C-alpha cells in the first residue's frame, strides 16, 4: 500500500466534447501541502471532484488514502475534510446548527465553540446561512471541512471571497494543519497563497500539468534574473568575459547585473570586481518570483527552462 495521501495517475476528465483534465499525474505525500495552481478553467476543480468521488474518471486512476473515492466512498468520507467551492448548506439553518450537525457525524470532533472563535464566526452562530456574506460562508465551509479532525483535506479555492484579514486567518490555520500532520490538497489561483502555504506546487494550464516542484525549485529553475553588487562608486567594467552581461551603476556604489547569470558568469563578475581592486561589501541575487514563472507558463510570454 502506498504511503501517499493522494495519488493521481494519467487522469482524464471530459465534459461532453471538452476535455477538462488531460492526463494529469500528481502525488500528495502524507503530511504535506500541495497547491494546485491555475487559471479558472484550468481543470483544478474537475480533478478535485474526482478525488472527492463526485465524478468518475474518464481515464487514469485516482487513489485517496489508498482507496477508490467512488467504490470506497463510505469508508473514505469520515477520514476526509472537504471544502466545496460554493454553497452546500441548508439556507435556513444557522451557522451553529450546521457546524454542530457535521461535528455530530464525527467520532472525536473538534470543539465547535473553539472552531467558531478561531474563524471569527462566533457572532454569527445564530445567523442563518443565507444571511451570511460570501466570506463568512467560506469560513463556515472551512470549519465544516475541519470539524471531524480529518487526516486529509481538500480545499477548493479556500480564500475566494474572503477579505484580507480572513485570508490571513485561513492561511495561519492551514499552516497549523500542516504542522499537526494533516495532508492538504488545495486549489488556488492566488500565487502568494501557493507560495506561502505549499510544500509542492503543481501548475495546471488547459487541463495539463505545466510545471511541478517546490516553490523554490520552480523559481530556481527559472534562473537568477538579477545580481546586485555593492562596491565603490564609479567602476567601469571592461572585461571580455562579461560581454554577455549588462552591468550598470543604478545609484553610486550599487551595481545591477543582468543577463544569463549562471555560476560561471557570477564568478566572472565577482572576479572582475576583485581584479579592479574594489571593496565588495554586499552581493545579492534576485530570483524570479513564482508569479513570473506562472505567467511565463500560462501565457507563454517568456520561454521557461
Amino acid at each position, binding site marked *: 500500500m502506498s504511503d501517499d495521501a493522494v495519488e493521481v495517475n494519467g487522469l482524464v476528465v471530459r465534459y461532453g466534447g471538452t476535455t477538462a483534465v488531460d492526463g494529469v499525474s500528481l502525488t500528495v505525500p502524507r503530511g504535506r501541502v500541495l497547491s494546485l495552481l491555475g487559471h479558472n478553467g484550468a481543470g483544478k476543480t474537475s480533478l478535485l471532484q474526482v478525488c*472527492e468521488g*463526485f465524478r468518475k474518471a474518464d481515464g487514469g486512476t485516482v487513489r485517496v488514502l489508498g482507496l477508490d473515492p467512488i467504490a470506497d*466512498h*463510505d469508508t473514505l*468520507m*469520515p*477520514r*476526509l475534510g*472537504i471544502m*466545496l467551492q*460554493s*454553497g*452546500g*448548506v*441548508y*439556507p*435556513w*439553518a444557522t451557522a451553529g*446548527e450546521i457546524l*454542530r*450537525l*457535521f461535528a*455530530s*457525524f*464525527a*467520532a*472525536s470532533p*473538534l470543539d465547535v465553540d*473553539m472552531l467558531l472563535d478561531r474563524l471569527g464566526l462566533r457572532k454569527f452562530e445564530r445567523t442563518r446561512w443565507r444571511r451570511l456574506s460570501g466570506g463568512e460562508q467560506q469560513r463556515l465551509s472551512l470549519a*465544516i471541512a*475541519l470539524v*471531524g*479532525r*480529518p*487526516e486529509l483535506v481538500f480545499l477548493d479555492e479556500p480564500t475566494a471571497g474572503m477579505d484580507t484579514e480572513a485570508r490571513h486567518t485561513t492561511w495561519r490555520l492551514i499552516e*497549523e*494543519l500542516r*504542522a*499537526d*500532520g*494533516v495532508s492538504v490538497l488545495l486549489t488556488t489561483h492566488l500565487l502568494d497563497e501557493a507560495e506561502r502555504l505549499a510544500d509542492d506546487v503543481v501548475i495546471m494550464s488547459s487541463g495539463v500539468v505545466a510545471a511541478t516542484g517546490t516553490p523554490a525549485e520552480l523559481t530556481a529553475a527559472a534562473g537568477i534574473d538579477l545580481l546586485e553588487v555593492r562596491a565603490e562608486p564609479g567602476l567601469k567594467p571592461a572585461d571580455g568575459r562579461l560581454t554577455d552581461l549588462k552591468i550598470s551603476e543604478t545609484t553610486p556604489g550599487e551595481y545591477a547585473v543582468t543577463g544569463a547569470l549562471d555560476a560561471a558568469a557570477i564568478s566572472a563578475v565577482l572576479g572582475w570586481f576583485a581584479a579592479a581592486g574594489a571593496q565588495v561589501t554586499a552581493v545579492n541575487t534576485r530570483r524570479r518570483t513564482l508569479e513570473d514563472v506562472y505567467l511565463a507558463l500560462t501565457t507563454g510570454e517568456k520561454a521557461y527552462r
Partner: protein
Amino acid sequence: MSGIFAPAPGRAPMRSVVASQIRMELTLTARRGEAVVLAMGVPLLVLLGAGLTEVTNVPGNDRLAFVVPGVLALTVMSTAFTGQAITTGYERAYGVLKRLGASPLSRPGLLFAKTSAVLGLIVVQLVALAAVGVAVGWRPHFGATLSAVGVTVLATAAYSGLALLMASVLRPEATTGAATLIYVLMLAAGGIMFAAPDLGTVGWFLLPLAAHAEALRATLSHDASVPLSIWLSLGAWAVVFVTAAARKFRWE
C-alpha cells in the same frame, strides 16, 4: 495551541449520525411552518368541506366514514410525496445533498433519516386530523389498526421513493411542478372527495392514493380486512420506487 488539528478521523456511531440528521430535518421542517400548515390545511378543508356538507356525492350513507380515511391517505401523500419531492429537489439545487455526500452520513444514512423524519411528521399529522374527524362525528374502529398502519407504511415508502426519484432525475423547478400536478390529479381522481372511477382491481394499481384510502376505510371505518389486491398494489409501488430511488439517487 499546537496539536489541536492532529488527525483523529472516524465516524460517530451510525445511530447518532442518523439521529442528528433526523433532528436537523425536523428542525428545518418546523422552521418552514407554512409548509406544514399547507400540508395539513388542504386535507383539513377537504375533511370539513366534503365530510360535513353535501357538496360532493360519496358512496354509502355515512359521509364521514368515507371522507375521513381518504383525508388521512391524502395527508400521507402530501407529506411523503409532494413535500418531500419539493424539499429534496431544492436541497440538491442548493448543493446541500452534495455537501452531505462529502460527509460521513452515507447514502443509506441520509435516506433513512429523511424517511424517518417524514414518518414522524406523518404520525403527528394523522393523529391531529383523526382527532378533528372524531370531534365532528367520525367513529373509527380499532380492531384492524395494525393493517391500517401496515398499508400506511407501504404507502409512505412508495411516495418517498417516488419523491426522491423525481428529485434525482428532474430539475428542482420541474420536480415542484410535477409533484404539485400529481398531487392535484390524485386529489381529483383518487377517491377522496368523491368515489374514484371504478376500474376494479386495476384501479388500485394505477391510483395508490385510492388504494390506500380504500384500505383505511375498510379497516378504520368498517372494521374489515384490507383486500389482497390493495396489499399487492401498495407493496408493488413501494418495492418499485424505493428500488428505483436507491439506484438513481444522486448527491449532486
